[in-house]
């Protein structure tokens, strides 16, 4: 690929990405009333989308072969338990991540 083609390809990716980010704000400008159904979706979507993101993070976990997604399951369980107990975001994330690293580096080889 020539330099010009490389730049055009990156530009096309930037444009595609920006369309997905800006489109809702262009379709529903701040100075006009937002349709009711969009307002409703704005209220209920955040919870649903974070659920989608959790699944998205786990999309490449192979549950049918060793180690059957056990490191992820244990890591998420530990993160959730810590968070339930202490409600400290940094502690829960650090605890879960360190445990996961130990599991994939030392336990589930």
């Amino acid at each position, binding site marked *: 690929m020539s330099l010009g083609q490389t730049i055009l390809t990156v530009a096309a990716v930037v444009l595609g990405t920006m369309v997905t980010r800006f489109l809702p704000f262009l379709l529903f400008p701040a100075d006009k009333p937002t349709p009711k159904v969009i307002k409703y979706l704005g209220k209920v979507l955040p919870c649903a989308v974070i659920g989608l993101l*959790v699944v998205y993070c786990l999309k490449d976990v192979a549950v049918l072969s060793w180690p059957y997604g056990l490191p992820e399951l244990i890591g998420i369980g530990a993160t959730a338990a810590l968070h339930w107990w202490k409600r400290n975001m940094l502690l829960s994330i650090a605890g879960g991540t360190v445990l996961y690293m130990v599991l994939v580096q030392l336990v589930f080889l």
Partner: protein
Amino acid sequence: MQTKMRAFRAAFPYTVPICAGFTFLGLAYGIYMNSMGFSFLYPMLMSITIFAGSMEFVTVGLLVSPFHPLHAFALALMVNARHLFYGISMLDKYRDTGKKKWYLIFGMCDESFSINCSVQPPAQVDKGWFMFFVTLLNHCYWFIGSTLGGLLGSFIHFSTEGIEFVMTALFVVIFLDQWFSQKEHLPAVVGVSASALCLIAFGSGNFIVPAMALILILLLLFKKRLEQRMEVEES
């Protein structure tokens, strides 16, 4: 100035886990580009302009294939389609943020969105500047990690396998925070189960768009019931 400092101080702690995750992922991305024969300028400039992690990894593949900008554009739309949902969720929150709004939208990656949509900064902190600094800090971490990865590429050998789990843990924690703060759990349940179902049905490469469609359909089907329950909650 004081408003900005206060917002910065409130925002920074929320971005610390992302600093860890982005520095690592950015390094990995920079090293990857280096190994494919690209100078550090590529990950550096792409991390600023695209700022959508998974799409940047995909773009490396595009750059070593035959030239096809329309395909690149369409692929970026598909991979990043979830941003449409973020935008709809943030229409209200970004409303009165002035000129910052354009940057907030430009920099709305998964992590910035998840913090900005769920964290309620303390009352004396300006919300617009809080969200601005969350977005800017995350953008900086990603930029620094990618550039360093591109520069150091061949010198680094990691023993940090598994650190990418920091992103999963972050989303799990945000998911739980939302769960604890709301009485109505149906949207969260719909999000997880529809996504899991589509992942099983369509596989990891193709599940996002069908999952988004299924989430939309289900939430619209439950609209009457959910609106009634939420009204009861508010009053």
